[in-house]
């Protein structure tokens, strides 16, 4: 980590977005993670995506659990409210928060320990409910804060820094997310911002549950030669399914794309996703096919990245329960309390 605070003044000619804000306006406190930590790159991608989308920072809530990854919301969007909850329980807090106010953008940041072990149950159920949020896992296969124990996403053949074997099968969070009904499922790499930022951008716009599993190497405990979550291993074994462009509603499509290898998806707010496919056999609208691709790559030892699964029908928990279009947290006595008249009716029913 660095100890030198950045000055709050910035260059007057920094570019600005539609809200007139520059990238610095989306930054947070100085990171206290290890120098070179993949998580800091994920934070940068979040800043970039929010800047690009001109999301008003105060209209976004950032939530996390416990662990290195869960500390990162301090390091971006300091004008957003943040909630560092308890270990593995961010999904339930996010669910309550989202029910209270459907008008905010919800961004959850978790880790592989927080999500795949202690929080696996809550992770599964938030997906089933299709909460409208972006759920990012900074996946490094290890418990950093407690100094290097295996996590449940660590590959079976991936050794610890001390050379110990990992005897247990790993959990593929992306496959799990697809199976349980997530609408937008991607995998990416903290070191590939060209792929990660558009994925984040699209995922933040997606209405429903969007999940990005970001392989984000732990430079201190899991970046050694026998690890499958190291920078080196990832770069050698990455097989990208494709790349993404997100075109806002107001802009025209200027990207050239080849027939057959590209697809255009209209999003609920009118903007468009352009998918540049590298693997033509991949049908990203088919759950079975998407899960198969994940399995096939895992079997041969490669890591598949990009947008893996997409449900074009965007819907969320509020649609399911048909809740008031107004945020519940602004309703008043007038909206909520049936008054003495209502009570007369109830009393009569108990006579």
């Amino acid at each position: 980590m660095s100890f030198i605070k950045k000055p709050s003044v910035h260059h007057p000619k920094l570019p600005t977005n539609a809200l007139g804000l520059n990238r610095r306006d989306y930054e947070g406190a100085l990171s206290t993670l290890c120098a070179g930590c993949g998580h800091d790159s994920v934070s940068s991608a979040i800043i970039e995506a929010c800047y690009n989308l001109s999301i008003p920072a105060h209209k976004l809530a950032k939530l996390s659990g416990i662990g290195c990854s869960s500390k990162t919301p301090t390091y971006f969007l300091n004008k957003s409210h943040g909630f560092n909850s308890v270990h593995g329980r961010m999904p339930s807090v996010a669910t309550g928060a989202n029910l209270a106010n459907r008008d905010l953008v919800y961004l959850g940041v978790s880790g592989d320990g927080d999500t795949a072990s202690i929080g696996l149950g809550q992770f599964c159920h938030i997906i089933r409910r299709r909460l409208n949020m972006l759920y990012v896992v900074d996946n490094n296969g290890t418990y950093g804060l407690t100094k290097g124990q295996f996590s449940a996403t660590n590959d079976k053949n991936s050794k610890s820094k001390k050379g110990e074997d990992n005897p247990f099968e790993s959990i593929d969070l992306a496959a799990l997310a697809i199976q349980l009904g997530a609408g937008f499922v991607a995998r990416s790499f903290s070191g590939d911002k060209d792929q990660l930022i558009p994925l984040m951008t699209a995922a933040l716009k997606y209405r429903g549950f969007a999940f990005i599993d970001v392989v984000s190497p732990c430079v201190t405990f899991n970046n050694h030669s026998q690890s499958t979550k190291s920078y080196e291993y990832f770069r050698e074994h990455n097989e990208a399914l494709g790349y993404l462009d997100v075109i806002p509603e107001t802009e025209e499509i200027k990207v050239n794309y080849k027939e057959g290898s590209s697809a255009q998806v209209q999003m609920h707010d009118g903007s468009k996703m352009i998918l540049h496919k590298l693997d033509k056999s991949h049908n990203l609208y088919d759950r079975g096919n998407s899960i198969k691709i994940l399995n096939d790559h895992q079997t041969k030892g490669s890591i598949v990245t990009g947008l893996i699964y997409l449900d074009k029908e965007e819907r969320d928990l509020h649609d399911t329960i048909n809740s008031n279009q107004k945020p519940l947290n602004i309703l008043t006595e007038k909206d909520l309390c049936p008054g003495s008249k209502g009570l007369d009716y109830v009393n009569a029913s108990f006579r």
Partner: protein
Amino acid sequence: MSKINDFVVKFANVNGSGSASANAMFAKSIFRMGIPVTPKNIFPSNIQGLPTWFEVRISKHGYAARREGIDCFITLNPQTYQTDVKEILPGGYLVYDNTMPRNFSRKDINYIGIPMASICAENYDDPRQRQLFKNIVCLGALAALLKIDIKIIESLIKEDFEKKPKLIPPNIKALYLGRDFALENLDCDLNVGLKKIRTTKKKILIQGNEAAGLGCVYGGATVVGWYPITPSTSLVEAFQKYVNLFRVKDNGEVSAGIIQAEDELAAVGMAIGANWNGARAFTATSGPGISLMSEFLGLAYFAEIPLVLFNIQRGGPSTGMPTRTQQSDILSCAYASHGDTKHILLFPSDPKECFEMAAQSFDLAEILQTPIIVMSDLDIGMNDWVIDPLQWNDKTSYERGKVLKKQDLDELMNWGRYLDVDGDGIPYRTLPGTHETKGSYFTRGTSHDAFAGYTEDGRINADNMMRITKKFKKSVKYLPKSVRRKAKKDTNIGLIYFGSTSVAIDEANDILESQGHATDLLRIRSFPFGRGISSFIDDHDHIIVMEQNRDAQMRSLLINELNKDSSKIHSILNFDGSPVTANFIVKAFLNLLKKNQVVFKSLKKKQSAA
């Protein structure tokens, strides 16, 4: 001796045999005759086949506690017959199905045989109906034997089956089959019986969970995360029912979000997340759920997030007696979670207070920015109680506590989430989405300074912990006050109680008073304890705390929190899972006197001697 409007009827049934609705109609018809009635459902943790009982106390005096000794036992379950028969008072009645011949051992009770099975076999073809209508035939016979107004039962049948009108005629037929059999074949001149009075004319008959769920609608709750657990489930079901009744817009949109969670951890997490984001939210659970929620309770306490939590207590420890009642989570709730934590507890004593405290708890949670735990129990929650009608003042406005709006933030220079600006320990909070540039902060369970920043500076953390203590102590002024009742003559003995025990205390006190004993009474309604409770203890040489747990948890809490001399504080403890009776309390009280642990002295005499 005639026992008109003053006796106990008990039904022994088999779970899942359709007895519940007939039993409920029995109790409700007596209530509609104007007579105070206290039904207790004694049921197993089972769906079908195990024994279940329904005990109904009828008391013209309005005594609402259970009473030992059964005047009239309707034994429809051969499994429990041998033990059931022992509960009948000498001279009492045993009602049974005499379709098959039976032998009886007791000579001091009366036997009333009704061929329920054969009546049903003769009149109904469908085997399921033959089984179900036995209960209604029995009810009809009881109407004749106990002088229930049969027209009231008829109208109850019509109300119950309003949505299945086809079932009304066969039910009414069964009712009259039973009644006619009794009138034609039985001596219906019993020493127990009912006579219309007007005592309950203006009252309602309602369960605590129903009232609490309704109270949450009135209190403005919009978000619920919950996980099914007996005996709390019916509270959330009631909330859902009244949301459907009162909160559905013409276009079908619902002004609430009710989510059945994957477990209790998620249930409370959702309620915390929603409260953090400015909605009034709650969850309801029982003992095992409290254990699971404890980690989150510590977070809500330390990060100062409003939360309403209903604990409908059941028999513990562990899975314990899931369908029996206790008051055994006092300490686990008062101090729930690791580290130094303390929580505000409310103790409703009947469904009326369940309604009122449920509605009030949302104000308290937001004013005090901390969890409020409403400590009900199975007896209040899942049994019908006769209470005054629920009331609501239409001038009531919700107290949302210290929440800063956009314009407040515009005017503020130096806002800190945990700054004690007003000296009451209660800081100002902000909600996400309020202001473009001001008022954002990071909510965390880690040690933090007044500006919500992470700190490992022990001094700063200690200061923050002391501020929370200040807030906790000062919370007393917002909480329901204890209720003190003076004995008719001066006494040095004080009796402390709370919750569902109250009705048994009322009756026990009358009995003791009639025997010449004098005891001042104090009913606790909230924790932390107010000064009134402290002075009540100081004002008496002997204090007796009545509670329904083994370890005298409330006594421990009083001694610990108020720093009182433990040698003068005695206990009466009932923890068999059944609601305590007045006789139990009287006996235990007299026992304390007998052993000289409690010695009565008239204060006036003492003063004049001095």
